[in-house]
């Protein structure tokens, strides 16, 4: 009786099997990398804003401290988006006729909020508190990136839970001295781990990974 399958069928079968495994693995890998990719997290995606506000100009160019605008970062969960009045402190004098700033003036005139699009948007079931992070030596740039180099604001981290946990499990890798929290061009020293451990002890940083730390 003649064989039903040609000899080459063996090879085809083996290749198919391996291919199948690779494909499934590949799909999982694809899904995994897609999940953390900027496509999903919207990192590096500069959102359209009502005003082309440049952090680069204001932070690097003018040397304005983060806290001049984000006033509640040290006291509240919410860092604070400056009221129009804060813009007008300067812009009633500087570029007071610039067409780019018309929305600011309109807001001030009509008593209507400027409607910013949120860039760093955590899910609603996450309760993040800025004040405790900056008080424990987490720099602005650690999460928000080099804002002083961003003409338009975008997110640089995934803002996913694994990223949060990375630091919550190993804070010594990321903390910096309190006085450098608002320093944009701070570079971790070569002995970051040693410094980090010292700061963790000094600031009594706890490795909080209980669910209710962030979810409630």
């Amino acid at each position: 009786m003649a064989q039903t399958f040609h000899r080459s069928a063996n090879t085809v079968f083996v290749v198919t099997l391996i291919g199948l495994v690779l494909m499934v693995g590949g799909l999982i890998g694809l899904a995994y990398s897609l999940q953390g990719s900027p496509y999903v997290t919207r990192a590096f995606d500069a959102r359209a804003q009502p005003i082309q506000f440049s952090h680069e100009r204001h932070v690097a160019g003018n040397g304005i401290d983060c806290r001049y605008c984000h006033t509640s970062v040290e006291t509240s969960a919410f860092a604070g988006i400056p009221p129009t009045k804060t813009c007008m402190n300067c812009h009633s004098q500087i570029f007071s006729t610039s067409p780019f700033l018309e929305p600011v003036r309109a807001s001030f005139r009509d008593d209507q909020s400027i409607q910013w699009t949120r860039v760093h948007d955590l899910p609603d079931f996450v309760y993040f508190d800025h004040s405790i992070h900056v008080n424990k030596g987490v720099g602005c740039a650690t999460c928000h990136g080099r804002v002083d180099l961003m003409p338009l604001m975008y997110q640089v981290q995934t803002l996913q839970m694994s990223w949060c946990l990375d630091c919550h499990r190993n804070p010594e890798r990321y903390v910096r001295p309190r006085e450098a929290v608002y320093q944009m061009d701070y570079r971790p020293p070569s002995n970051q781990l040693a410094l980090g451990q010292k700061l963790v002890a000094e600031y009594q940083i706890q490795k909080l990974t209980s669910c209710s730390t962030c979810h409630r």
Partner: protein
Amino acid sequence: MLKDDPKRDDLTAVRSRLRAASGPEYWRSFDELADTPAFQELLHREFPQGASELLDPVSRRTFAKLMGASLALAGVTACTRQPAEKIFPYVRQPEEIVPGKPLYFATAMPLAGYATPLLVESHEGRPTKIEGNPDHPVNRGSTDVFAQASILGLYDPDRSQTITYRGEIRPWGAFLTAIKAAVDAKRALGGEGIRLLTGSVTSPTLANQLQQLLVEFPAMGWHQWEPAGRDQAREGARLAFGEFVDVQYRFDKAQVIVALDADVLGCGPHSLRYAREFSERRRVTGGRREMNRLYAIEPTPSATGSIADHRLPLQAGSIGPFALALAAALGVPGTPAASAPHDYASWIEPLARDLQQHRGTSLVVVGDEQPAAVHALAHAINQALDNIGRTVVCTEPVESSPTDQLSSLRQLVADMEAGKVDALVVLDSNPIYTAPADLKFGERLMGKVPLRIHVGLYHDETASLCHWHVPAAHYLESWSDARAADGTVSLIQPLIAPLYSGRTIHEVVGAMLSKQAGQSSYDILRACWQQRSGLQGAEFDTFWRRALHDGMVANTAAAVKTVTARTVDTGGIPRGGKGLEIVFRADPTVFDGRFANNGWLQELPKPHTKLTWDNAALMSPSTAERLGVERGDVVDLAYRGRQVKAPVWILPGQAPDSITVHLGYGRTRAGRVGTGTGFNAYALRTSQAPWSDHGLEVHRTGGHYQLAATQNQQTMEGRAIVRSAPLEQFRQKPDFAHHQAPAPPRALTLYPEHEYKGYAWGMAIDLNTCIGCNACVVACQAENNIPVVGKTEVSRGHKMHWLRVDRYYTGDPERPTAYNQPVPCMHCENAPCEIVCPVAATSHSSEGLNDMVYNRCVGTRYCSNNCPYKVRRFNFLLYQDWETPTLKMLRNPDVSVRSRGVMEKCTYCVQRINSAKIEAEKANRQVRDGEIVTACEAACPPQAIVFGNINDPNSRVARLKAEPLNYGVLEDLNTRPRTTYLAAVRNPNPEMPDAGKAHEAER
């Protein structure tokens, strides 16, 4: 469809089971006691059968369509990303506001005239949570259910929103013109024919305005009417002391208290203070081995009765004779010696002896619902016992103009009848619904008054019969003032601008005054206080700011008066009656009906009955048996020629042949929530006997009505859940609670020990002082964004309250002893729920919290199945209202709003824990004891709930947990609950006839 229809009470089975019983015998309901198969089935299921099935009849075709659509939609949603969010910063940020940080403002809630001083939490201009004012002497930070739930009333979308004239929308200006024209037309006659109808008034500013109005229009009439008012107490004090005085009790000085139909701890303007002071003398912690003694004699079980050491169910009409017998035994002058024999004779003598032994430290209290003569007699008893000036303090009246409101209303009706009333202005009152039925207020009002104006929160029954309706501003939107029960004035400041352009009463009355027309209530209030304080300029500003900040005006408490009770005329005391008695009471949750549209209060299980969404004809088991009715049977209540259909509820501890009906239900124009719930008991209430009377007839109709009670759900089978002992036994064996069900050794577990290095949160609840008032339940609901599910869902076992108050009984169903037990999540150290969750949505925190992660939960309900305490709640349907804009403003922004398919439960207010921890960390210190106050603890009037860090041996909670009375519920399961209880200790008088009986259970 549902298998858990109200089951018939098998009284024979109950009796036989009780006869056979020995040892601790706590029971919660007749079903449990009767051990019916239906109850057994309910007991062994996590949720009642059919609980998880969709009730609506869905055909196969529809089902297929729905499934197809949801599959497709589920696929689509998976592809979407989080929608872009907008941030709206301030244009000019107010100085005090830090976004993300709440502010607290002192204000006060007026209820039936009296103020409850409050501190209201506000998030960026939205009030979200009510707390009591911790500095105010009347409540010291505690609140009642009404104050807690009033925040929902503010955001109620059913509140009336526009000024209307004959149903058409009108501007405020048009109303001003109309009311001005109406009063001007009568100016020459001194305002004759114009009548005002208000509730009780304590507001100095409103009183001042009304006085000015009466000066400007001397012939104008002002009537006051509170349906659940204090007419009889007011008149009783006048009878006894010869003038209007307010009577205040000093429970902190009273050792022996006799409450005659008086729910002094549970309701009334003084209740928060009384509950706190009463509980201070009742605690047996910190080495104290003495406690006060409370006798409650009442027709219907109340909060006060539930904590009493001796409780006698007695018809309301027999309370007077009881008081008379007691007075005679005490030798009170003017009381006749022993009258006819009665079944409470054995009580009188030992009770009188106990009172005699505590002259000056005893107290006889009579409820507001008892006739004036009984009040006067009680004052005479207190006088004879030297209590006046010690435990009873009389002060100047707090009300601006104390009057007999029933006669005031009667006068108004008579004048309307006679055509003497040309214009009636109803200010925040609903007489069409609340006036006694025999006055026929509606019919007379309709025909005979040419101009009718109504100012109120809702377009209610009265508004529908008035020409003009002006939406009133909620107290959280108003500038006003009011006096608390002790007389201290609180300024009421708005937390938010009126949501629906409501107007305050001050503005409406101001519109009638020539001097104040068009003035805002702020101007009127300030002007009044400028005049009262006699201060000017900067001095007044300081005074004003201080009063607003503190929530009270210093030194405004009513002045104490030295008075002597006169010998009483006992002629006015009812002699009791024959046949069935009807007892009217304000509802413990919707009050006189004004809160009928408040979903939180509607769904709040009422003390004792645990009924929600309905009132019922409450009767004792023996009465029900005699009448041949069972729970849920619809009966015709016939009284003085009027009839009302009502469902029956059998209530252990109700006086025999006495049927209690609660007012406040059967509203026809309450709003979406309140309209059509329950039956209208006002339809039976007459002006001759507003609170109780004999002559009721009950007829069976054969109908049946489903009542939704939370009673049989989450039952904790017959274990030593509540532990209790008489004081004597406690003295001999302080740790008696541990012998009732010993805990296993700590090592007896397969799971590794958790280690709690930092904080370890825990709670202790004192069953000795809990009065079951429910304030904690509503406080929890407000704090944690807990939805309302509705009557149908409650009857299917789907209520969502994270904290419930269980009520247990011991002894004879006719005269049971009751115990209240608030049950939040136990936060077990060996939590059975955690180990069964397949997705780790509930897990153990490093501080011992039993965390619930909503976004992880997939709704398997294994955790709830495995929870021995049944404290987990599941969102079977989409209970939360995600649509109504005003309700979005109500939510606490610090707590996730849960959606369908998610399990939830008490978190120990983890948002408050985290916020306190963050503040402490920033200041580089430990969280101080008492810094974290859970919502339930903050509200609790008797301060029975204490939360804190059990790793700190000096914390209040750790000290309570070290008490011998401390025990964990079901600790024999080795769950190691973090919430523990202090066993109840009762202080029975060994000479009393029921001393042995009531407490034999704890042998």
